[in-house]
């Protein structure tokens, strides 16, 4: 099997600042990690390769330092990584990101599966996986919670939906997006880390891909962030601060009365 795993590098903490003018994130000075939900995609890919043979290529679109995410994937057991990086890609929304990643996947060549995480913890949209499938004209199954089997050029998987699990079969090649339940990610091994350190990571820019300049980055993105603000939340809270048994009883009586008043009991 040849499996491509798109992984995103995301900020480690949620103490991220935003550039109020462009509406994009300021990533400088924040530690970056592999999107935690992409580790499940990596793990499933490794299990499939170990079972059926083949190779896994991780691909990440981002600034040059996103190469570190690819090295981490390699240290877990991924065979190789491709960085997709160009100033022209900066400020891409999910449309433009899917467009570029699909072009990168096409350049990598024939494959059986593209396996994505459910969503990235920073952008948090879950749109890029289906987006890649749309650009590649491939079938997609989202929210895969269990990989059942491979049968005659098709894969059989469980898909997590609101009221249960669908059992689906998809002809290969195709795209999967996976949820946490799909596999328990392994830790990098010492040998993996050595391999990762030495790995050659090619970097592809716009000129290396079959893409149109006007569909890239901020200019190629249909959506625009026009305002950023801190969420405000406020209700008038009746607050009881009991200090002993008597005031505790009063507070609870107060609550029971309140619930009765709202006809909740």
């Amino acid at each position, binding site marked *: 099997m040849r499996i491509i795993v798109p992984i995103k590098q995301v900020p480690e903490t949620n103490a991220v600042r935003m550039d109020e003018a462009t509406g994009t994130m300021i990533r400088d000075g924040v530690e970056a990690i592999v999107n935690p939900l992409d580790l499940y995609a990596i793990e499933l890919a490794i299990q499939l390769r170990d079972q059926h043979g083949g190779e896994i290529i991780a691909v990440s679109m981002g600034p040059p330092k996103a190469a570190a995410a690819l090295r981490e994937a390699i240290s877990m057991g991924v065979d190789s990584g491709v960085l997709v990086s160009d100033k022209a890609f900066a400020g891409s929304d999910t449309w433009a990101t899917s467009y570029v990643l699909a072009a990168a996947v096409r350049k990598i060549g024939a494959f059986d599966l593209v396996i994505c995480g459910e969503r990235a913890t920073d952008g948090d949209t879950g749109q890029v996986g289906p987006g890649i499938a749309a650009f590649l004209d491939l079938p997609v199954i989202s929210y895969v919670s269990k990989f059942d089997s491979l049968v005659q050029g098709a894969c059989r998987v469980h898909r997590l939906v*609101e*009221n249960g699990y669908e059992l689906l079969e998809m002809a290969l090649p195709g795209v999967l997006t996976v949820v946490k339940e799909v596999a328990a990610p392994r830790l990098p091994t010492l040998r993996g880390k050595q391999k990762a350190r030495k790995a050659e990571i090619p970097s592809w820019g716009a000129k290396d891909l079959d893409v149109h300049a006007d569909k890239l980055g901020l200019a190629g993105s249909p959506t625009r962030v026009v305002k950023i603000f801190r969420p405000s939340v406020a209700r008038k809270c009746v607050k*009881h601060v009991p200090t002993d048994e008597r005031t505790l009883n009063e507070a609870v009586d107060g609550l029971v009365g309140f619930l009765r008043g709202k006809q909740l009991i």
Partner: protein
Amino acid sequence: MQHEGVWILAEQSHGRVQRISHELLTRGIELASKRGTTLTALILGNNVNQDDLQGLIDRGADRVVAVEAPQLESFLPQPYMRCMLKVIEDYRPEIIIAGATSTGRTLMPLVAIKANAGLTADCTVLDIEEGSGNLLQTRPAIGGNIMATIKTPNNRPQMATVRPHSTRPAEPASGREGQIVRLKAPQELLASDVKHVGFSPNVEEQALSDAQRVVVVGRGIKKGENVELARRLADKLDAAVGATRDVVDRGWLSYPHQIGLSGKTITPQLYVGLGASGSIQHLAGMQTSEVIVAVNTDPEAQIFKVADFGIVASLFDVVPVLLEKLPGK
């Protein structure tokens, strides 16, 4: 030709219209009235119940477009995508809103890419910009620490998803009139590389989302065994049990119980938080609850900012007394 009209993507299961459709109508009615245009509900399925389609009209749609074929009985990405693209081509809607359900979250990105449209996920507020008439889509960003307002200035349709249970369903009004258009899906759009093989239901999963009362356990519960105390309160209140992420991460309750940004969104009549701090990510999943009660030892806990009734005390002191004083069982 101009793009015109607000559309919602209604959902059906076994031919019956699902609640999310009625929630979307609540959003759609407001947008259509602000934009001074009509509201259409699109539904893909097979033999969708006629009364349910009329129900969409009763609840505020001016028109229902049902695209039907046996292959559309349940969600399959490719045929659904092609049929929706065909509808967009034929009707040219200006705005399409869908639920951030397993269907909506998969179908909308597929369609947005193919239709060259902008798509914003998980919007909490939707509005129309005065003057331009653009759709203003507000959503939490970066783990909910920030809200971002997004628009799609040049591409049409403008597409967005909203989380299930983030609004109340629109109420039916009798005597509303509207047009129901049933279309047979063209055969050439129905091929699929994905096949349904089976389904196994998980009832518990659905119960929490639909619950009218929820007791939520936060890390203040201290130990997995103590969750039992919250369960007893939940039983007495006829409530479901939910949890914060910290509780789920510790394995005290399973992931389907998680409420918040990376869990479920709930809009119950009553939310009772026991030892939950009220992090912004947790609030993202519950602050639209009708009545919020919080018990927390920390008077400065964020949860009190959104609560209607708060007790600053240990839940281990409050809950036993409350269990005694509550009527019933």
